């Protein structure tokens, strides 16, 4: 069928190529790091005061090199990387040896994905709606709102989160200072645990939403300002269609289209985007683990996480591309 030939296949090919290139880049980058995972490990023993005698050190280096699978040429390692990737096995984490990478990721990923998919989507929806409205009406109080957003947006993210923390965890101690789950609580599937988790997620989520919202709000507003001068909008206005309908049916509906693509890319920040959140809120997640693994040159873990990241992003873009025709009937025709 020519839909498959013309629409699906090219996109799938593009998807495969981009994913392939992305994964290759991910294989190569960490190996260029000036940090050596084994030496890094050794130094950690020393820094934390575990005395390692020189003889012992030599032994550790030899054993670790073997255990970490860091032998062989780059090319051999690259081939075995693909081999393992297809089995979805990234080997043991080097810095958290001998825990398998999959396990490390498995423990952290749900938190990140949970927090981020929620906040990304909420921020996006809010931005689309409010950005559309503000972009369209431009009333006085909206200008004020716009101005506030403009001021909040550039504030470095960790300052924003710190302010939230001081406000809602210190001055008004409504929310916990840190963590993803209450102290002494073990993970279980019951109402009180879920509530507990939600309570801990509110502040991080709030900051992520505020920051995400501010960014997207402004692009939505700009898109709207262009969209509201489109012929069909002016026509609807002349025809006496109420403003609220114009905003919802014409302006937001149409300006949303480029925002859909942005949403896809937004998912790309999931993995790097939570790093600072996790640092500030001591929140569980993959960001810190990734950061830490870079610092320790934990190739396997870096690759594991980044592979998931790349695959998640390309897949979500592919997905959005495939459902894009639902949003834009013109694409269906082309």
């Amino acid at each position: 069928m020519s839909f498959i030939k013309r629409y699906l296949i090219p996109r799938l090919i593009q998807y495969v190529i981009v994913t392939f290139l992305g994964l290759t880049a991910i294989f190569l980058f960490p190996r260029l790091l000036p940090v050596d995972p084994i030496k890094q490990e050794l130094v950690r023993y020393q820094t934390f005061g575990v005395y390692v005698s020189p003889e012992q050190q030599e032994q550790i280096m030899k054993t670790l090199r073997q255990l970490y699978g860091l032998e062989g040429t780059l090319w051999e390692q690259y081939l075995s990387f693909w081999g393992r990737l297809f089995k979805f096995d990234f080997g043991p984490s080097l810095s958290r040896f001998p825990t398998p990478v999959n396990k490390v990721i498995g423990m952290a990923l749900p938190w990140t994905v949970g927090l981020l998919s929620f906040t990304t989507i909420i921020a996006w929806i809010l931005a689309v709606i409010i950005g559309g409205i503000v972009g369209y009406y431009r009333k006085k109080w909206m200008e004020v709102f716009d101005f506030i957003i403009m001021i909040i947006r550039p504030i470095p993210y960790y300052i924003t989160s710190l302010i939230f923390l001081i406000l809602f965890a210190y001055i008004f101690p409504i929310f916990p200072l840190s963590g993803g789950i209450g102290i002494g609580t073990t993970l279980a599937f019951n109402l009180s645990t879920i509530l507990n988790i939600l309570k801990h997620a509110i502040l991080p989520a709030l900051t992520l939403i505020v920051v995400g919202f501010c960014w997207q709000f402004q692009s939505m507003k700009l898109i709207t300002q262009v969209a509201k001068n489109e012929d069909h909008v002016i026509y609807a206005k002349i025809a006496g269609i109420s403003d609220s309908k114009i905003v919802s049916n014409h302006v937001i509906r149409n300006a949303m289209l480029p925002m859909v693509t942005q949403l896809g890319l937004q998912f790309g920040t999931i993995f790097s985007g939570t790093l600072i959140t996790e640092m500030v809120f001591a929140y569980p997640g993959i960001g810190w683990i990734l950061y830490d693994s870079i610092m320790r040159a934990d190739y396997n873990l870096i690759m594991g996480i980044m592979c998931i990241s790349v695959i998640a992003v390309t897949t979500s873009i592919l997905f959005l591309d495939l459902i894009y025709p639902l949003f834009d009937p013109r694409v269906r025709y082309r």
Partner: protein
Amino acid sequence: MRKLIGLFYDLLKDYRFTISFIIFLFLIILAILSFFSPYNPQRTYQVPSGLPPSKNHILGTNWLGQDVFWQLTFAVKNSLTIAIVTAFFSRIIAVIVGIFAGYKGGKTDRILITVGDTTMVLPFLIILIIISMILKDWTNNFFNLGLLLAFFSWAWDARVIRSQILSLRERDFIKVAVLSGMPTMRIVRKQLLPHVLPIIFTTFINNMSWAIGMEITLAYLGLGIDPTIPTIGTMLQTAIYRQALFMGLWWWLATPIVTAILLFIALYWLSVSLSEYLDPRARFQRVGA
């Protein structure tokens, strides 16, 4: 030239442009002042530490015995340098890629856009961290850090430019240019470039604020530039890590934050007012009477 002055005069009627222009001017003056600083920005314990703003130290001094005002002048200069280098080089890449992908189409288009897409799907903050580690000595210099940031910020704008070019390509005057025997390169340079100039301009400004933001984030993580070199990011990082907030040295913390906000507002308003002004539709409407 007269036209330029006229354009400027006209832009000044937009309050956003005026305000942002004044802020910008102010920051540039700050940056220039750095050349007259009585203190070496990387030296510490030059003045008594932790003094609140006063006549001698208009923005007070920090815990490291540095005059916050004079630190700021360097920070502004350095951050702007990074931002401008980033914006400049990423624009060059974006324009070349965008125009060629859009104008040549076909294979060229697909290859360039694929490369661009690839850089977009990589978790770039992470890659940035990795690269800034790999190229440690190399990124210890504003210019190189700018180049590095540039490498990660061209793809999206290249796409925007490409789509513009795609629609321009279909317009009759390009056909006329082809019929007048113009070679591709000249068509690109003479016929297409002027049309994408407004986008280049506004994305330049947006890219600048992105670069400043990235520098701040990298500094927070202790990456990027040598932390003893003042930039808005490193100033902020030191203030935060050295407990300026709890020590009550608010001037130390507030200075980089307020400067960052001012700078972002200026850049944002500049970009908005310019893009409104340079919007081809608006522009042709204005000219064509």
